[in-house]
């Protein structure tokens, strides 16, 4: 199966390592990705706050481009960023279920010379790995099993909320399954879905940083060696503010936070350079040493 790939803006900047490691891992596993040509921003949460229909229109543009590029039949789009993933999903569902909205957006698309037929299927890399590729196959590809590593999976919000397609909305396990397949110990903790605050670390630092502090503190309390995420913003918040948070709350909460694809890359024996490990602020010593 061939997949179209929608990177989203963050995977080109703060979340660059996510893209690098994802592409490296998929290459090694032999999963084909083709980037959607001339894609645009998904609008994330901010765009919705200003103008919903425009937010849906710009996202539909991406879906229409994908259909154009993906040929006939179902077109599977992989969206690694949780916000993009949810944004594309939500747009598809609203267009599927709300006739008036659909007509309006299709008209806009027509004006832009595009056609959207509703043939897209939005997929998360975890979904593809588990349900298409298979954990058994992944297990066989592991070269350096991550024994004795306690991994804390942090799912963030928008991977299973509000639309849970491949994992449980209240108790997701997919990232834990991947970690276990890599040989690691998946630590069960109660905050895997609790919000990191998104852009609040920048807009309302007091609140945003406190939310992250609570998460990091519990991760440490559960004796995690490493945290993994599937969202560029979560990763950014949890990792890049650790210095500020430690200072502010006078508590050492330092813990490596990496993308799950980086952790996979390590286990698959992919060179660190290709996985963007050098871009991390907190070196993932438990895995690199």
């Amino acid at each position: 199966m061939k997949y179209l790939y929608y990177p989203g803006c963050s995977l080109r900047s703060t979340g660059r390592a996510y893209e690098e490691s994802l592409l490296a891992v998929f290459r090694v596993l032999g999963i084909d990705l083709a980037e959607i040509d001339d894609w645009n921003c998904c609008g994330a949460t901010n765009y919705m706050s200003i103008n919903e229909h425009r937010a849906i229109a710009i996202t539909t543009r991406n879906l229409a481009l994908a259909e154009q590029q993906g040929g006939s039949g179902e077109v599977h789009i992989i969206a690694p960023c949780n916000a993009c993933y949810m944004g594309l999903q939500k747009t598809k569902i609203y267009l599927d279920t709300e006739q008036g909205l659909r007509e309006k957006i299709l008209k806009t698309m027509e004006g832009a010379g595009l056609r959207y037929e509703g043939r897209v299927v939005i997929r998360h890399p975890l979904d593809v790995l588990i349900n298409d590729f298979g954990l058994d196959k992944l297990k066989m590809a592991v070269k350096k099993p991550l024994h004795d590593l306690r991994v804390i999976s942090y799912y963030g919000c928008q991977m299973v909320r509000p639309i849970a397609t491949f994992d449980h909305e209240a108790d997701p396990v997919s990232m834990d399954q991947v970690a276990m397949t890599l040989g690691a110990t998946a630590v069960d903790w109660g905050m895997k879905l609790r919000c990191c605050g998104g852009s609040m670390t920048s807009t309302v630092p007091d609140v945003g940083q406190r939310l992250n502090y609570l998460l990091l503190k519990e991760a440490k309390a559960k004796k995690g060696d490493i945290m993994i995420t599937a969202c560029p913003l979560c990763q950014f918040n949890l990792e890049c503010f650790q210095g500020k948070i430690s200072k502010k709350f006078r508590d050492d909460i330092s813990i490596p936070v990496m993308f799950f694809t980086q952790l996979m890359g390590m286990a698959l024996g992919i060179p660190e350079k290709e996985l963007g490990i050098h871009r991390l602020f907190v070196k993932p010593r438990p895995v690199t040493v």
Partner: protein
Amino acid sequence: MNSGSNGKQPFLHIKREADLDKEFSKRIAKLAHGEKLYGCIQCGNCSATCPLSPYMDYTPRKVIAMVRAGFRDEVLSNSTVWLCASCYSCTVECPKGIKITDIMYALKREAIIKKVYPRNFAIPALSRTFYDEVRAGGRINETWLLTRFYMRTNIFKAIGFIGLALKLFGTGRLKLAEKKLKDRQQFRRMVESTSN
């Protein structure tokens, strides 16, 4: 608001029926994909599951009660809705299937249209900046997004983030230039042809 009370403080907390916007809830229900908000049983599950409710002026449950009753000005001019980070916990856990996150979005948009959102609050400003960036270029360059955002709000606040920014540049996680859309004019036209 509160006309006829001569501005005397003791009357301020008394809300008269005439001061309420009776159509408000209908508008929000329409904007937020559904009539389900009328099914709210005030169980408070949304507030309890919300990671940000402790920082809000009104809890999400109270916001819904206020929307239903027509407390338009209170809800819109307040920071509460802007503190919603769209984590969707409330939407998923609501026993009545109310799309609470969508209601929060609808309230944000309503506040912007009515121009009553809290001016000194940073989140609407970020949304605005983000919106303009996408409309102009089709994609977000996080460097410029944040720069423009700080220019819009409080340039001095940015100072605290300079160290972080340098570190990001150092690890290649921020860039000055980003690949752009092929035909940005057409993109912009498309955006602007969509009314809400």
